[in-house]
């Protein structure tokens, strides 16, 4: 069989979220996985380990998560699609290299299977506390793309999408999920290889001697890339750099360099943002949710609708960039926004900011032990609607 046929297992399968994620990576063309074992993300690696020899991929267990992401960044510069998978404490270790990935504009995918924190926390419980870390985890200014799947099918689809976005915007993309979704067993449909849309990084096509690593297109602010070993003899650095990739320590260059890195995501945020709305048109109360918790929201909304409360749901699929315009727009129509989260309030701060006081924002602690139940969401909807 051809390599692509072995990589893309077209058909319907019974897969866990973890397995679907590994299959998504393979279907997207991922041929390098660097990792360090950590619970509960390890199931993804196990699937990859079974499959990587089919596609002549490279799988390496590094000595820690810091080196795992460093190796992934190095591999990406050889033209390989590369990913790493981890969980909370490992994700924290990767923070510095998320910054390096952003600065060197290196496409790669980082999967964070969240577990309950803080610190070592409760490893087997599905966590939800890494949302803001995904956004602000590395030092300095940057923008990030983070996707939040809520089913094994989405683990597949969003892993593919994560690779596409990372190649398109030349930036690390984070797939932020949790043990609940990664352990969930559901039907996953893998399309034909030809139907899987993958954006491949823009390669430099000009003269070799004219190549400047960070000379970007005004159209999308993304510089075309080259692979190591093709004779361009380029230099890139994590220091503030000019278009030649050489370090320049002045304010003007800092502005030129970092402002563009921020803008190349910010300007196109509306193209990246993805969400799912249900019955928001006439809703007085809208539940804004993401990830595993959003599975419970749908039940709650249906239940209260039957009781005559005009409720709706907004499920955020791209946490970062945040769907700011959508929230502002919904806040004009609805009177209440409810944000159930499996953390002590992270996305609710964003929702409140974007609501701009036009609707009241209510935070609800939907603990990991409550995932799979919607009674607390129903209760809060009724409470705010005074029914």
């Amino acid at each position, binding site marked *: 069989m051809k390599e692509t046929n072995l990589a893309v297992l077209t058909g319907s399968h019974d897969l866990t979220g973890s397995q679907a994620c590994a299959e998504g990576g393979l279907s997207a063309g991922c041929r390098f996985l660097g990792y360090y074992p950590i619970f509960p993300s390890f199931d993804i690696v196990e699937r990859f380990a079974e499959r990587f*020899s089919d596609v002549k991929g490279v799988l390496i267990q590094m000595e820690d998560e810091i*080196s*795992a992401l460093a*190796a992934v960044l190095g591999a990406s510069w050889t*033209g390989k699609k590369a990913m790493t998978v981890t969980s909370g404490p490992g994700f924290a270790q990767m923070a510095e290299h998320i910054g390096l990935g952003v600065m060197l504009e290196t496409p790669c995918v980082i999967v964070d299977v969240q577990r309950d924190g803080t610190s070592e926390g409760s490893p087997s419980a599905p966590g939800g506390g890494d949302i803001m870390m995904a956004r602000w985890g590395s030092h300095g200014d940057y923008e990030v793309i983070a996707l939040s799947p809520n089913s094994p099918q989405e683990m597949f689809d969003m892993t593919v999408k994560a690779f596409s976005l990372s190649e398109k915007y030349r930036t690390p993309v984070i797939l932020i999920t949790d043990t609940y979704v990664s352990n969930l067993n559901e039907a996953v449909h893998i399309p034909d290889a030809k139907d899987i849309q993958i954006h491949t990084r823009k390669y430099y096509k000009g003269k070799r001697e004219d190549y400047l690593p960070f000379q970007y297109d005004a159209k999308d602010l993304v510089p075309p890339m080259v692979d190591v*070993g093709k004779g361009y003899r380029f*230099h*890139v650095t994590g220091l503030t750099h000019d278009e030649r990739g050489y370090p320049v320590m002045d304010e003007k260059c800092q502005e030129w360099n970092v402002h563009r890195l921020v803008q190349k995501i910010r300007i196109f945020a509306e193209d990246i943002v993805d969400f799912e709305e249900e019955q928001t048109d006439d809703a007085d109360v809208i539940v804004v949710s993401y990830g595993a918790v959003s599975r419970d929201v749908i039940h709650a909304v249906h239940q209260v609708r039957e009781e005559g409360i005009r409720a709706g749901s907004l499920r955020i699929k791209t946490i970062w960039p945040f769907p700011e315009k959508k929230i502002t727009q919904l806040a004009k129509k609805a009177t209440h926004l409810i944000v159930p989260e499996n953390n002590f309030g992270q996305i609710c701060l964003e929702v409140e900011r974007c609501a701009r006081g036009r609707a009241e924002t209510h935070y609800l602690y939907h603990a990991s032990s409550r995932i799979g139940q919607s009674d607390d969401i129903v209760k809060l909807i009724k409470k705010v609607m005074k029914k």
Partner: protein
Amino acid sequence: MEAIITQQEAKRHPMDNLLRMDRMPHIWCPGCGIGNAVSAFADALDKLEYNLDKLCVVSGIGCTGRVAGYIKVDSFHTTHGRAIPFATGIKLGNPDIKVVVISGDGDLVSIGGNHFVHAARRNIDLTVICVNNFIYAMTGGQVAPTTPTPAYTTTSPFGNFENPSNVPQLAEAAGAVYVARWTALHMRRLTYSIVDALKKPGFSVVEVISPCAMYYSRINKLGDGLDMMKFYYDHSIIKHGEPTDHLEIDYQKEIIVGKFVDRERPTYSESMGKWFED
């Protein structure tokens, strides 16, 4: 016309093809030995007649971390201590590329110590050139894992009492296939060691003892770079094949240099290839 070309060529430095002349002057202080290590490396590449398109240099952070920015090949200036794992990714991503890591003692042995150990254990096909100046120079002269006892540094104002690392011993114990040490004075021998290391498949390590005139020798009142070179001249002893546990460097005592390890072990890529063939 011919005369003009000759004149231009006369102006060209023999290393112009290997160095980024548009970045000169470099940042290193007068009397520093990193330039010597770079010269030896460039000279080694010249001797090997490598296809420079297929060579890649990765550096970490620090004075030596800046080397990647001056060598005219594909080069990466990465994060502190993480040059080796970044280089590992490149090597495994494209095994046709010769990957060289050039970084300092603090970068490779302290913050990157774990990566050094594990890359040597796996025998990833990398050549590591470790410039050891006994101190953290770029950050302002702090004590390093290689600072001899009882040298003064800005953070050991009463002298260093910590036991210093022995880089060749660490490399050998971890599994490196080629280990040598020279000082910045031994240019010819250093060059030949780098040639050997580059030719050797697997994890090879060349330690370069280098003067830091700005911090190490100034704080310890050992004179300038030239005085340090004189010290190396008087105090270095060539002992090829010396057991690496004899290679500890005491303060202002003899420095044993030479080639200590040259052995055969299958590289990571060879082992992996063979494993999946079977």
